[in-house]
């Protein structure tokens, strides 16, 4: 039974391995290192947003507003660039907007006491509405090649490096700083955290703000990658981002975490790429991703050690 438990707990790695082997045999060239790395680069959008969501989930809340801020921020960004704004100026504006959205979420959740699931879902619709109001739903294209972001560094795409550095930084932040530990304890038991003299509101506030920044960063990466800002950006991101953040609990400790989110978003990307190159219809990918999410979370819970309210496998 012990071995079975391990298989359940690390099922996500087995799954990635299995899918890689499967696609590599079906599609020539799928298995080469270049493709493997490029899939990691393509996972960046999902990954960065999933980091934001995972951080908020560590604190015991949730934030779905990214599905609305994606198209809105992408549109604003593209318009700024096409209006001749300086690149870094535009980037800073978008990141700042991300923080502001995060803070608004935090205020509704913490001070107006709206459950975060509700508050951020409403925010998602508000932002989507705002996007359509100002854009009319038109796609905006951006010109220029941002090689310093999307070039290669030897065989490694620069964006992959960026993703890995961000992963390490956020991992340090959530696991090895006072802030991270306080956030974790708030997520586990807010009443107790309060009793330990932890300022619950301010920590959650910063978590929402950090989430907002990461969502806006993901929107930026998506816009630059696609060289355009489209309205479907948000709805397309909703499932994979949410799935990655939830699946991160499957990797390791049973709580949302940064490394887990990276692994999960890579898995989802492998599926998307594999299905794409096999020529499966567009709706097959989210269906497969969704089923996987359910399966993995179920498997991990079944395989968990005798926990609180969990069925024991002996």
């Amino acid at each position, binding site marked *: 039974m012990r071995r079975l438990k391990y298989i359940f707990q690390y099922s996500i790695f087995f799954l990635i391995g299995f899918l890689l082997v499967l696609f590599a045999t079906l599609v020539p060239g799928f298995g080469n290192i270049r493709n493997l790395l490029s899939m990691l680069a393509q996972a960046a959008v999902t990954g960065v947003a999933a980091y934001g969501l995972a951080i908020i989930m560590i604190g015991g809340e949730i934030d779905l507003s990214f599905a609305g801020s994606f198209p809105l921020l992408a549109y604003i960004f593209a318009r700024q660039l096409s209006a001749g704004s300086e690149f870094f100026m535009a980037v800073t504006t978008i990141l700042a907007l991300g923080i502001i959205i995060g803070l608004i979420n935090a205020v509704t959740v913490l001070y107006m006491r709206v459950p975060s699931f509700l508050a951020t879902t409403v925010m998602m619709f508000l932002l989507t509405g705002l996007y359509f109001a100002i854009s009319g739903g038109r796609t905006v294209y951006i010109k220029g090649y941002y090689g310093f972001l999307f070039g290669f560094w030897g065989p490694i795409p620069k964006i992959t490096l960026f993703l890995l550095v961000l992963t390490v930084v956020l991992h*340090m932040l959530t696991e*090895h*700083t*006072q*802030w*991270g*530990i*306080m956030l*974790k*304890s708030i997520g*586990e*038991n807010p*009443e*107790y955290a*309060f*009793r*330990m*003299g*932890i*300022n619950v509101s301010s920590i959650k506030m910063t978590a929402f703000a950090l989430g907002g920044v990461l969502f806006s960063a993901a929107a930026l990466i998506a816009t630059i990658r696609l060289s355009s800002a489209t309205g479907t950006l948000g709805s397309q991101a909703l499932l994979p981002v949410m799935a990655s953040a939830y699946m991160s609990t499957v990797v390791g400790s*049973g*709580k949302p975490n940064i490394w887990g989110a990276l692994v999960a978003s890579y898995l989802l990307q492998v599926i998307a790429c594999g299905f794409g190159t096999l020529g499966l219809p567009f709706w097959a990918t989210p269906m497969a991703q969704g089923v996987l999410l359910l399966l993995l979370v179920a498997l991990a819970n079944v395989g968990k050690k005798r*926990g*609180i309210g969990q069925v024991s496998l002996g």
Partner: protein
Amino acid sequence: MRVLLMEGVTKEFPGVKALDNVDFELVEREIHALVGANGAGKSTLLKILAGVIRADSGNIFFKGKQITQWSPRQVMEAGIQFIYQDLGLFNGLSVAQNIFMGRFPKTIIGTVSRRDVWSSARQILKQIGVEDIDVTLSLGELSAAQQQLVAIARALVRNPAILVLDEPTARLGSDEVNTLFAILKKLRDENGVSIIFVSHRLEEVYQIADRVTVLRDGQRIITDELQNINPEQLVKYMVGARLKNSGRLRREKSLEPSEEVILEVSSLTSDWFTDINFALHKREILGIVGAVGAGKSELAETIFGLRPYSKGQIRIKGCLVQPKSPRASMRFGVAFCPEDRRSKGLLLKSSIRENIVLASLDRLALGRWLCNPSREREVTQRLIKRLGIVPSIPDHITYKLSGGNQQKVVLAKWLCAHGEIFILDEPTVGVDVRGKQEIYQLIRELAMQGAGVLFITSDIHELFEVCTSFIVMHRGRIVARMRPDEASLDRVLYYVMGGSNAQA
């Protein structure tokens, strides 16, 4: 006629014999008080009756028939109703829905008619003489006393032969207690219900009960008509002769409180207690003892800044403070180990290390922000060794530890945070005998090193074991102040149960 007979009931938990060959008998139309000090086995006996746990040996006869299969559901169907301290009602449902939960009167097409439910609920409440409760309100809007009455009404719907009340008066005022007692007597006389009544209050036992059974250390000491026993005798039965002389208990000579006052509370008053005065010195272990509902935990939470108070002063080391939040209190060196350590005192899913350092992250940090795992591990390792936490692995998950070791982790956390005033609320609940001794020893060491300890307990033996002096609370007031060497167990229990000075 005998309704219930429990015969030779024995139950052993790891390391402790909770019930040892106990007999308990209940006859028709009687109110039977079940009394005993903490840990005497009352709740174990009731749990066995309720079918929640199974006795190791012994027989139960209900209405003359021996019962072999005994599950909570069967107990309920047989006609034994339990009203626990937390009542087990649903705040979000209406009074009527609570009363009929699980057995709604149905209409022909099988739906529940609200009007029928309301009128039947009113009828039931009227039966027990309650007319001022609006059955359409949701339960959460009622007072504690009214909720208690709803719980009784719910029990009545099922036509019980036996009604078991576990400390029903702990949260009631004295008028409300009188109402409740009138209802219980009515149930006994008119409905023929037999009632088992658990209480920690002497005057109530005498006011309501016909007979009493005293448990002590898992054994039945006596069952008799109350009129044959006077209060002093009753308390002696509960305490036992062998422990009467407190001088026999081990005392730490070296523990002599200093003159320096570290915490002073004067005329502190709130909704939960009235006019509390005491001073805690350095190197002192001041016990606060009282029954459930005496207000001792509320007092502790007030000092730690978790509850507001309306009047009075709190001084820490001579400075007037107004504790508004735990954060503020911690800054003054106040450490608080709550009674419910599993939900309020620990992060069960985190490691020993994470728990211990949580209150001192600032102090252990590397620079301003970064954690310093190696230093944390070193500190944790030292505390684990000092407190004898088993297993001695800093990264062990806390929920796997025994109760005693979990409590040590809570203490270690405050040691790590350099607490000076320790408020310990029932630190030995759910801890085995050996663990208790270790915790007592730790508390003594804390005091010897200059800390002031407020030791809150409802177990009187503990007072004599660890405290240098103690106060007794009853219904939110301090009713006695004593030192272990000048008090006897039965005297203390007498005060705890609400015996007054005049009678003494």
